[in-house]
């Protein structure tokens, strides 16, 4: 999902290029599918302006993502590439595209189940997380935090496999 619609050919080209830039920690999903590319504006001088939203405040991948985005656009012939950090509105896991969610599930990471901005999340009553392997809703949280800031660790009570869950924020 993006906040602006590409209207010019260079902008459409840039969106396609970024569609091939993988997230460094979950390489199966692109930065566009992740929803962190907020805007792209081609400049008359052949350059391009990119608005990127950080996912989690403490995500160490933010710097790497920025470097990869700049590199991809420069290789695509854009100069200069100007990156702007977009804090508002804050990134939400709701912005992960449908294609991105499917790719996450196929990769073995359960996609976010609901929006965390709901009051519900405050009262320890999360929507059921489905096991990405067998599809069962009988799963439990093993750890609220996982191997990266964006993931938690869950376990399936039916197929007994542990799996990672993309946190809702």
């Amino acid at each position: 999902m993006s906040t602006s619609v590409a209207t010019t050919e260079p902008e459409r080209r840039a969106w396609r290029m970024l569609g091939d830039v993988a997230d460094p920690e979950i390489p199966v999903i692109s930065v566009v599918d992740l929803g962190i590319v907020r805007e792209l504006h081609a400049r008359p001088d052949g350059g391009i302006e990119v608005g990127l939203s950080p996912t989690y405040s403490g995500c160490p991948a933010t710097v790497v993502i920025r470097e990869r985005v700049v590199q991809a656009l420069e290789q695509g012939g854009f100069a200069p590439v100007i990156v702007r950090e977009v804090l508002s509105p804050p990134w939400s896991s709701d912005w992960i595209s449908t294609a991105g969610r499917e790719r996450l599930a196929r990769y073995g990471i359960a996609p976010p189940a609901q929006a965390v901005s709901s009051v519900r999340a405050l009262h320890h009553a999360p929507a059921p997380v489905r096991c990405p392997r067998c599809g069962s809703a009988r799963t439990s949280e093993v750890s609220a935090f996982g191997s990266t800031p964006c993931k938690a660790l869950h376990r399936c009570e039916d197929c007994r496999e542990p799996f990672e869950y993309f946190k809702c924020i």
Partner: protein
Amino acid sequence: MSEALRIDYVLQLADSSLILGQRLGEWVGHAPALEEDLGLANTALDLIGQARLLLTYAGELEGRGRDEDQLAFLREEAEFRNVTLVEQPNRDFGHTIVRQVLFDAYQLELFERLQSSSDGRLAAVAAKAVKDTRYHLRYSGSWLVRLGDGTGESHARVQDALERLWPFTRELFEEQPADLEICARGIGPGLAELRQAWSARLDALLTEATLTRPADAPYRWFGRRGVHSEHLGYILAEMQYLQRAHPGARW
């Protein structure tokens, strides 16, 4: 009306996140279980992420060319504006959890209100950070309930930690002339109202955890004005060592 007030306020927010992030980092490799190691480390990462955004902003407001790193690594103890609560030592896991609950609940109420700050930049940072903070409180709060309503030993330890840390919470809501002006300008919330919201949230958790809320006590620290407990100096000695020993060192 002076911009110094705004800079000071941004530094208060930034330093509390930074120092608690540094404190929690001490648990890495030492927590009672891998899950808790990850939980505390991830919380620390978020807090340091908040501090980076806020310190960068403070540096821009100040206009003296200081960036986030210079502000974090080259200021002296008395220039830090963090609340004294966050510099208190980790002690045992229960003590760390109590400190975390007290602070998470405070930060959550604070960030929820800062989302509508007249300062657009602070509002944006708060809107981002409030989501992390909600998750932090879910973690620390669930542990507080487990430990408080757990065994006799775990209950006694967290109740003791609560008594020990309670005096430091006074400072979070002690209204100074500067706070009144911050509130009047719509930059930050009024502290009396903030205290009420914090209290309500905390009381619900304490009840569930079968813990007793300690009586309010006099206190003598005031980290937000740069008057710190003896612990901050030691944290800075470790945190700032590299930049002091090798000025300008970079990755």
